[in-house]
């Protein structure tokens, strides 16, 4: 499982997408998610308000407890937060309060903040075979020397766009839009055994 406090497996039936001796794929419980856009100044203030600073280094992630700020582009970050007590519901109120806090902190500084909590779902891909399994559909070099723990990027999962974050040597979190999840899960679940 993910070594982060942020992600926990969803409790729902069918949360387990794939379970093999060397790799598992599990749907994660919902999170509060905010898309943040703005320049470095805005990002600095946003990080302070959010509770996890927004990384300025490309492809970097900054997890702090049950929050994380992910660099997605030079003026784009994805802010993630899990409620203190685990829930299977989408934490709208958390998303709302974080939204309000960041908005208040930035007041007159140009920026854009949009709640995208419901847009994405996350899959946790974990185990020694995780990278090999992902490489059946993801054209990135997932060798740890090239794609180290903490790196995050948008990329393609064959015909679907994903955000891929290595949270531990053997663990990746894959975020995608809701309606693409069955496609991605389908391809992961039917990946041949000898690929993992």
């Amino acid at each position, binding site marked *: 499982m993910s070594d982060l406090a942020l992600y926990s497996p969803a409790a729902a039936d069918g949360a387990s997408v794939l379970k093999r001796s060397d790799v598992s794929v599990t749907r994660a419980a*919902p999170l509060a998610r905010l*898309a943040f*856009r*703005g320049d470095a100044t805005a990002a600095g203030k946003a990080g302070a308000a959010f509770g996890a600073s927004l990384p300025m280094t490309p492809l970097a992630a900054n997890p702090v407890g049950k929050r994380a700020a992910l660099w997605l582009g030079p*003026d*784009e970050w994805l802010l993630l937060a899990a409620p203190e007590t685990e829930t299977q*519901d*989408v934490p*709208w109120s958390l998303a*709302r309060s974080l939204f309000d806090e960041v908005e208040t902190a930035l007041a007159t500084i*140009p*920026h*854009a*903040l*949009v*709640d*995208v*909590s*419901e*847009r*994405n779902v996350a899959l946790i891909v974990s185990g020694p075979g995780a990278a*090999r399994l992902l*490489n*059946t*559909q*993801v*054209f*990135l*070099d997932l*060798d740890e020397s*090239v794609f180290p723990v903490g790196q995050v990027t948008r990329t393609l999962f*064959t*015909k*679907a766009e994903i955000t891929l974050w290595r949270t531990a040597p053997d663990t990746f979190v894959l975020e995608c*839009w*809701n*309606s*693409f999840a*069955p*496609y991605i899960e*389908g*391809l992961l679940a*039917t*990946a*041949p*055994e*000898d*690929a993992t």
Partner: protein
Amino acid sequence: MTQRNRTQEGGRIDREAPVSFTFDGKRYQGFAGDTLASALLANDVHLVGRSFKYHRPRGIVTAGSEEPNALVGVARSQARHLSGEATPNLRATQVEIHDGLAAESQNRWPSLSFDIGAVNDKLSPLFVAGFYYKTFMWPKSFWNKVYEPFIRSAAGLGRAPKKPDTDTYANTYAHCDVLVAGSGPAGLAAALAAARSGARVILADEQAEFGGSLLHERGAEIDGKPASDWLAGALAELGDNPRVTLLPRTTVFGYFNHNFLALAERVTDHLAKPDPERPRERMWQVRAKQVVIASGAIERPLVFPENDRPGVMMAEAGRIYANRYGVLPGKRIAVATACDSAWRAAFDIAEAGGAIAVIADLRADPPADLVARAAALGVRVERGCAVTGVIGKTRVKRVLLGRISDAGVLSAGEVDVDCLLMSGGWTPNVSLHSQARGKLDWQADKGAFLPGDPVQAQGSAGSCRGVDGLAEVLADGARAGVAAATAVGHEGDTPEFAATGGEAGDGWWLGAVPHDRDAARVRAFVDFQNDVTAKDVKLAVREGMQSIEHIKRYTTTGMATDQGRLSNMNALSIASGALGNEIPQVGLTTFRQPYTPVTFGTLATTSRGDLFDPVRKTPIHDWAAKQGAAFEDVALWKRAWYFPKGGEDMHDAVARECRTVRESVGLFDATTLGKIEIVGPDAAEFLNRIYTNPWTKLGVGKLRYGLMLNEAGFIMDDGVVGRLAEDRFHVTTTTGGAPRVLAHMEDYLQTEWSDLDVWLTSTTEQWAVIAVQGPKAREAIAPLVDDIDLSGDAFPHMSVREGHVMGGIPCRLFRMSFTGEAGYEINVPPSRARAIWEAVWANVEKLGGCAYGTETMHVLRAEKGYIIVGQETDGTVTPDDVGMTWAIGKKKPDFVGKRSLARPDLVAEGRKQMVGLLTKDGKTLLEEGAQVTVERSPARGTSALGHVTSSYRSPAAGRPIALAMIAGGRARIGETLHVPMPDGGIAVEVVRPVFVDPEGTRLNV
């Protein structure tokens, strides 16, 4: 089940593991480790197929992927053969046998030994290169009816599978420092050298076993060990290195830009009972920092009369069969050569128990040591001697010898044999180097093209770049491996390998071999599979073909499934002789991927069925499916199309749904519409520039219909935009247009207007959208809305409010309509959309309402004259064309597309304009796409005034209605026009394009 040609011992086959298979229905036995070819040869089967054009009997020529003749249809079992699941055209030299494997010969009827098509061979004097361009033209009608069907049925090789393929295919993306293509001594040395320096290495080889020539070297030693022992050690070392990936049965088939390579791995075809979880084949898509090509060299046939008879084989292939598979290619063997290596093949075969009847070398002075060795073995040697013919139709019986002299070729008698081994020397295998766009250098002294300077990050090693001899090849591989590793930052010493044996072989021959036969009558084959002879190549030149590409296309040489691997150099040489040009001036045809044929399924990998393209479904999808909805594909989405009840067809269902919406209320899933949140201080200014409409003065909480043009001035998308705050807009797009619109906006924002402080975020999937439309819409939703005043005054048409539904679920409530009825679109979190939908549904049902799909949505909007982008418009339509100049902000200095709207043709008279059409009889439903003319029965070639864009039965109008784009349409309102159909014209009246509530009073209930 005897294997009469099997040696008593030796080879890499497992004599303890017999394998039973069938060929043309007859059962044979081989051993584990055999290819189909080696097993057939063990059973003295040489005749395995018929050639493409002349249907000549053909035998096994090679022992590798370059095989031109031994193509067979292969299935896992005889049953699968019979059910049409065999794979055609596999090379018997690559097919590994397993128990139950069923192979069939091809291109023969009724049987391999008696083939009606062989009549073509009798007609060969007529069927020369390009004959079909000169005939089959009279009478004209015969081409499609007689000639072409005849030619088609005679052509082709195997039979395409008839049944859908049930096997699966897989894909893997990989990266490495060094990819080594080929695992012969050069490739192994390169892989060892690179791996020892710490590089990430992939070693791939098309064969089942790594080792290349080491698998059949007899007597060679490396580092003091027999070659096969050294090989085992090297493979163990590589296998133990976690940074090395070993890929046997894997062909590097494509070398693309920027060191991207594609590999095809055969995963399970060689297994009798494969694990069903494993794929049949897997494509590897590899980005390599460096590539070492170690693809070896390919032995070249000699072009002499009847060189295509079964039993005529490459010398090295004979050696491979003897040494690696323990199979003698014949009992009594002749060798025709111009190269030393064939002598060693003869010696090895002799040692394995074969009788060498004669070695005929084209050279006057073959090396003395070889001659001495032959003498010691008691083998007859003929120097300066050519094979001038072969007797025996389905198997070599005798070969004719001719002595080459100044006076020409003089007969040197005949020799009785059952096998003839030939060698014209070696052609370095430069295919991958050439695919990588590396140039080729002609080496006249070697009679070969060698790799020139590489263009990409790659090098060649070993005999593919003309290096010969085991010790030299190992050293070259080590050098290349270290060079590649060093280039990517790994330090390492160049390993040294001490090798003896595997000597270099000199000597070569290019082009036709001289003979004493009637040149006009005999056929010496250049391209075996496509039946191209030396005469054909000369004929092409005679007819004016100068470029090798012309010669290739005219004669089809090199265009068979072996891609001319055996034939290209001989064809080139013959052509150069006929043209009187040097070989480099005649040119070499381009090497293209794939290196050898690649299964379509392997290229398609996992894309099939529901995983072919993502199937996007809304949170309401399952509910709709349960209600029996029919769905339509819109972009990647499945949308509910209509909801038939109790045996209704689409028309009935849609009519009911339309009536219900207008009379009470309907529920519609609008989730798939694209949504973009546009936020920032300059958001309104951005929208001013992107849309035709003005946005500055749109109040917070208000909606406006937005129209978007491309820069050419044509409508590209539309949607409703809501202002949530001074600096925040909620934009909607069409379902199919969502990605395009976002890309369009980002393009302008980033590259033209980077001064604007505004950002775009896709929220398509942040919100599910439940549209509730109809006079009872407010009633249907009111009980569920927590905190929004729904009264007409507080929340008028074209407004938006943020609030909550069902006790705290956040929502964005739009009051808007695409039906002409009062209505709402409730944007809700997808995770709760189903529950909210069902709650609304409960109310809707109580109110006598219904759920409706996209078809009803289309009818309702057409009744109001609202356009659908992509239906009324087609990329050539301006706002004025569809009567929407009202959507253009007249005072705006600029917006995307504005300048183009002023171009001459876009302001010209007579443009097509949107109007309504009513059939005069009030009953006939026009067909969408039907043309509109003035005349009832226009003459052929009459210009259409326009066409019907939308046409429906309108319950509200009580008759069919249509929208159409008609030249000068607005001025034609009231006129009668016609819609010509195959069974006569339909009279229509041109009307304003609005059929229900033109004043819009129903919207403001």
